[in-house]
């Protein structure tokens, strides 16, 4: 029974990390161009500063 005392918080924590990661990705604009992102992964050289850092400072 004592195992539950840390198992449940651990499960919630892991879930929350996933949720925060998603919210961060959403905020940093990673869902703005889903098609283009697939191709950008194949590019070797970064095109410019913004392409490297993602459109975080966008708008």
């Amino acid at each position, binding site marked *: *029974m004592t195992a*539950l005392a840390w198992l*449940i918080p651990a*499960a*919630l924590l892991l*879930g*929350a990390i*996933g*949720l925060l990661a*998603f*919210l961060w990705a*959403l905020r940093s604009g990673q*869902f*703005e*161009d*889903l*098609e*283009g992102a*697939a*191709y*950008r992964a*194949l*590019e070797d050289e970064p*095109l*410019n*500063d*913004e*392409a490297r850092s993602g*459109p975080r400072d*966008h*708008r």
Partner: protein
Amino acid sequence: MTAHVLSGRGATTAGALDRAMPQRFTLAVENMRCGGCIRSVERAAMGVPGVISARANLSAKRLDVAVEQGSASEADLIAALARAGFAAAPIETVEPDAETAREKYLLRRVAIAGFAAMNIMLLSVSVWAGSAGDMDPSLAGLFSWLSALIALPTVAYAGQPFYASALGALRAHRLNMDVPISLAILLATGMSLYQTVQGNDQVYFDAAVTLLFFLLLGRFLDERLRVRARSEAQNLVSLQSGMASLIEANGGQRLVPAHALLPGDRLLVAAGDRVPADGVVLAGAGEIDQSLITGETDPAPISPGQHVYAGTLNLAAVLTVEVTAADSGTLLAEIGRLMAAAEQGRARYRRLADRAAQIYAPAVHGLGAATFIGWLVIGASWQTALTYAIAVLIITCPCALALAVPAVHIAAASRLFRHGIVIKATDGLERAAEADMVVFDKTGTLTLGRPQLLDENQIPSEMLAAAASLAAASRHPYAQAIVAAASRRSQDAIVVAGGVEEFPGSGLLRRLAAGEERLGSAAWCGVDGSSGGSEVWYRRKREAPIRFGLADRVRNDAAEVVASLKRRGYAVALLSGDRSGAVESAARETDIDTWLPELTPARKIDWLAAREGEGRKVLMVGDGLNDAPALAAAHASLSPASAADISQRAADFVFQGQRLEPVLEVLSTAKRARSLALQNFGVAFCYNIVAVPFAMAGYVTPLIAAIVMSTSSILVTLNAARLAGGRDS
């Protein structure tokens, strides 16, 4: 004095401000379709001096550029992209925040509701499994408290879109779907909290949060489709209106986006260019092609003092045009009035889901209330009665309903998108599915809207090639038709003749030592009396002149499409502003029995209204400015991407390419989308018929509620996905 001081200040601080605040442009890039394009587009934009960053968005087909203040203009960027082979245009109004903010607002709530639903389900499953076995009641109580801890903030945060909409409806003394949704979620959460405090096991946190998750998902899909449709439509309109060359006060010229023009601006319109804005001709005389405005294919003469409309094609001389506002006397103002009147009719259309909600919402409330009162009358405690009533609300909640239609629409939109068709109005699909009559415009819709050479094969190859080498010097559509015919005929490249002079309104001349070559009107080539129709004559030295007949031809697959529409039981008609003879021949060629020539925009609307009076639902296909009111008045409408921008704005769908086949694709996809939506309603209805009696009788435990609700939602989504991946008709 004050003005001087102010301008002085502006000049000194501007430098510091520039580096801090780069200027941002958003451009629509037409033919960016592949991964490699992203790189070419960004590289081309980065090559322009002053550009700080450039980022292409492949899904939106847009390019965001930041430049140093006052260094590069939109025109520089467009020119650089054109050199790289991409057609681009500035976006008229960019409100990225307003457009995507709502989408992100919903997606954040979807994510949080999803997280909460999964964790609560984890706890609930343990309780359900444990209640059959030897679970300690105190542990079940702990799990209920944990669920409450997760559910309460989630319900408060993620449910906001529904509460806001329900409150809005109630304030306006109406009932919408969000009223029972909000009621079910809030009551279920409140009751579950009460039960948790009491230490009972009738806890519905999982059902409430799962319900919220599915409903938000439906809301998000709906919003996403709307945002995408709007941004596509904006791209099309921007690319169509393009750039204008403005004559500045000092006499210089500058390229500016057409949407930035103001009344009083003076423009230069080169031969072969479209007039970018409505205005009055100040200088220059020649011919203009008004087919986009009136449907008339033959060029009309134009002289100083006359009105020209945006979208008309300048054929001959360079024109100087002064931009005018749409004043009440012009054709455009008349079109605007007609459209405003026509659109009111369409605003009355109520979407399928809304109509379903109108019946559904009172039924849900009635059943819930009946359950509560019924159990009280029988003598149950108020807690029991309320618990059963909440179970009814949860079971009947339109989860499947709210997900059914958006899921189908998203699937249909992505399918049409693959065929080069853009949905502009989200309810357009529903309206197109009801159509039983298809009405075409002639010029630019049934036909290509460009003159083509007639009786090509009777002209000797050598003569055609000689005429083409002369014609290649001109941008007149007749000359271009000859060049196109010649390049179809021979494999060799057309030799562009040197020393060709163009005489606007007359023709082309090339002086040689051995004599002269002329290409142009009958009079220009010294031919007495022409045989009528659109024609160009070619005369070489003293040889006999040759006549090239020209006419606008119907699209290659027009006859097939019309035949196919008739087979499927649609009535087909042709309405045109063009002359009787031209309309009749197009009708003959495509085998359309009902055709009417020389119609004004108002008469087109009257004709459509008369059909509506007979109970017909019309799908209008048109491109011209004169079709815009009819496009707005028809039950549903479709226009090619080459259409006047006002027509594209009025149409529900816009299709690209040379073929007319998208008309069939729109109709069949719309029909399939409607039958899938109805199937989904059927699934939702059947499940209610089965589950509601159990819920009213009090047999629905939280476990059953969770299972039944999830399965129906998943079933409905899978059914919708059949449209996207399914077979092509």
